[in-house]
């Protein structure tokens, strides 16, 4: 089994693992070169800083990206993710620090001499050339023999399934097809590294989801290293082998989608990815456990921190789907709080209950809708119990 195949599977697993279950230890041949100290990275950022005037877009950033990885740069706009990508493509040069590709500093190499190709957010298809000629463009610059170019272009057309449109101009095909042409064009030269700048942002939601899986499939088939820039956390979680969450030019956390979701290292990451409850309080350490007092008249929250925390101010972070909702006080869970239903967000497959505590704090809990809406068990103003186990949440020192 080729290592790339695991990327897709692993991600699939994230989405379908039952609530509350921790990521199981992966089998031995799992694709995770970042855990192997012997592995040589394809790309290495070493203390890279990029300033535009007095604005620091990328701030003293170091990260390794390995061959065959599908690496996602995730963050809000202006966080420096696009600048990082443009430095890899060669359109920007770092103010300080070095970027190594295959162990060589690539700063002096101009974009047209790098074995790095980019798929642009706008697709940047040449409007005066046909789909075929767009894909052949890079190959022709390499002065390859004509039959070799033809074979490669046809292979690319097949790969992204747009053979039928080969002789059309970009303005004669749909947005989804243009996206495929852009992908085929950037893959045609078989680059060591493919950069994707918000590749799916112009597609509608349904098409975007289908294309995400296709993108993973193509990445697996070609074995190319992909670096994707996106502000869509769902997209990053779906496609990537590792996600780097960025803000203000710094990497906040670089980890697998599972770890980013289940073990965020900061309230920022927890809040950025998915829905979350963040409860602030004072911690006292009790052996492996931590007791967090967070509101007067409420029992302390019992949590298990991943790393030992010092007593003092902490944030307790818990996902809504890890909180159970019931009308009776549960006996099997260590944490239970009582409140009344303030609001219900009905999403079809599940509902999110906003439950107000006596002190005014609102905690969100989601429950799958196993029955039809008219027979849902709780409604507005109902008194309910919220409960969770002592390992369900994450304790973060401030």
């Amino acid at each position, binding site marked *: 089994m080729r290592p790339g195949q695991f990327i897709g599977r692993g991600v699939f697993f994230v989405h379908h693992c039952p609530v509350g279950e921790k990521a199981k230890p992966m089998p031995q041949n799992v694709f995770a070169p970042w855990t192997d100290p012997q592995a040589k990275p394809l790309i290495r950022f070493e203390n890279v800083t990029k300033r535009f005037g007095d604005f620091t877009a990328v701030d003293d950033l170091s990260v390794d990206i390995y061959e065959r990885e599908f690496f996602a740069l995730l963050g809000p706009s202006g966080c420096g993710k696009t600048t990082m990508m443009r430095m890899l*493509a*060669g*359109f920007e040069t770092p103010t300080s620090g070095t970027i190594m590709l295959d162990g060589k500093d690539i700063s002096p190499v*101009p*974009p*047209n001499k790098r074995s*790095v*190709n*980019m798929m*642009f*957010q*706008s697709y*940047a*298809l*040449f*409007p*005066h050339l046909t789909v075929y000629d767009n894909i052949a*463009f*890079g190959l022709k*610059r*390499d002065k390859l023999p004509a039959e070799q170019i033809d074979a490669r272009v046809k292979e690319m057309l097949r790969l992204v399934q747009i053979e039928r449109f080969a002789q059309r101009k970009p*303005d004669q095909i749909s947005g989804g097809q243009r996206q495929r042409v852009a992908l085929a*064009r*950037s893959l045609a*030269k078989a680059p060591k590294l493919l950069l994707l700048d918000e590749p799916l942002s112009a597609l509608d939601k349904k098409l975007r989801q289908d294309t995400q899986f296709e993108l993973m499939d193509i990445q697996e088939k070609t074995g190319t290293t992909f670096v994707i820039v996106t502000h869509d956390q769902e997209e990053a979680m779906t496609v990537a082998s590792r996600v780097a969450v960025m803000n203000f030019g710094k990497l906040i956390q670089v980890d697998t989608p599972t770890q980013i979701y289940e073990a965020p290292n900061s309230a920022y990451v927890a809040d950025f990815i998915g829905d979350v409850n963040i409860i602030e309080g004072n911690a006292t350490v009790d052996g492996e456990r931590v007791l967090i007092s967070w509101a007067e008249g409420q029992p302390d929250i019992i949590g298990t921190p991943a790393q030992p925390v010092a007593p003092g101010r902490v944030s307790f972070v818990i996902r809504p789907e890890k909180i159970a909702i019931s009308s009776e006080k549960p006996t099997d869970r260590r944490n239970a709080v009582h409140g009344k239903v303030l609001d219900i967000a009905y999403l079809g497959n599940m509902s999110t209950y906003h439950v107000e505590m006596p002190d005014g704090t609102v905690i969100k809990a989601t429950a799958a809708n196993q029955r039809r809406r008219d027979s849902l068990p709780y409604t507005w103003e109902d008194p309910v119990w919220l409960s969770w186990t002592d390992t369900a949440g994450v304790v973060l020192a401030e």
Partner: protein
Amino acid sequence: MNLRRTSLIAVPYFWLGCLFLIPFLIVFKISLSDAALSIPPYTPKLELSEGWAGVRDMFSQFDFENFEFLATDDLYWKSYLSSVQIALISTFMCLLVGFPMAYGMARAPQVWQPTLMLMVILPFWTSFLIRVYSLIGILSQEGMLNQFLTWIGVISEPLTILNTNIAVYIGIVYTYLPFMILPIYATLIKLDGSLLEAAEDLGCSRTEAFWRITVPLSKAGIIAGCFLVFIPALGEFVIPSLLGGSETLMIGKVLYEEFFSNRDWPVASAVAVILLLILIVPIVLYQRNEQRLIEAEQ
């Protein structure tokens, strides 16, 4: 609804009929007549007092003698040819000067662009004749150009520029440059910068990206600019007569001399009709280009 549409379309046709078709028919009619010592100086004239017979009489006297004359005297076809040549060369020179200017304008910082645009249009605020006369002051033997070149020591003897074809070229390029710059600028400003980055990313050098992406994508603007310069330059009269010398042959000048020096209206009209026929080809081509441009934008 239909009536409204018809009347809307009728307005431009009415203008075209009044301002182009009827004058053209009058000129065409004169070109079929013979010169005569009378007022107006040609015959036959329409004698409406004789009724239908007068009209028939006039038509029976029409002939193509003047067109045949144009073919026999080599002055005429040499002037046509020389006009086409001068118009082509000056169009090309306009392109050489205009494209870099348009490119520079399109690449300039956003805040500068309205100012640059204004500077291109500004000369139109002064009369065309005054600008051509001032060129005489610059290009003559004792003109500012010769004085300047002597002063910086490039030349010791003043150059003879005025009253040569070179002065005509300078005059045409100077006058028609904005017509070249503006359509090219309009296409370049729409050019998406990421296309050039994509070309570089795929292995083009900067120069190659320019030739493979920028030039093809500004083709429509280049074509429009070339026609906008070529068409008026071909029939240009003021510039060759003011700046050109005796050896400058341009059909506009010939036309003027036939009308006002020779008072041979029929021959002059024939010259004008042929000039129009020559111009129809580029005008039709220009219209086709414009049409394509509009379709491409939809």
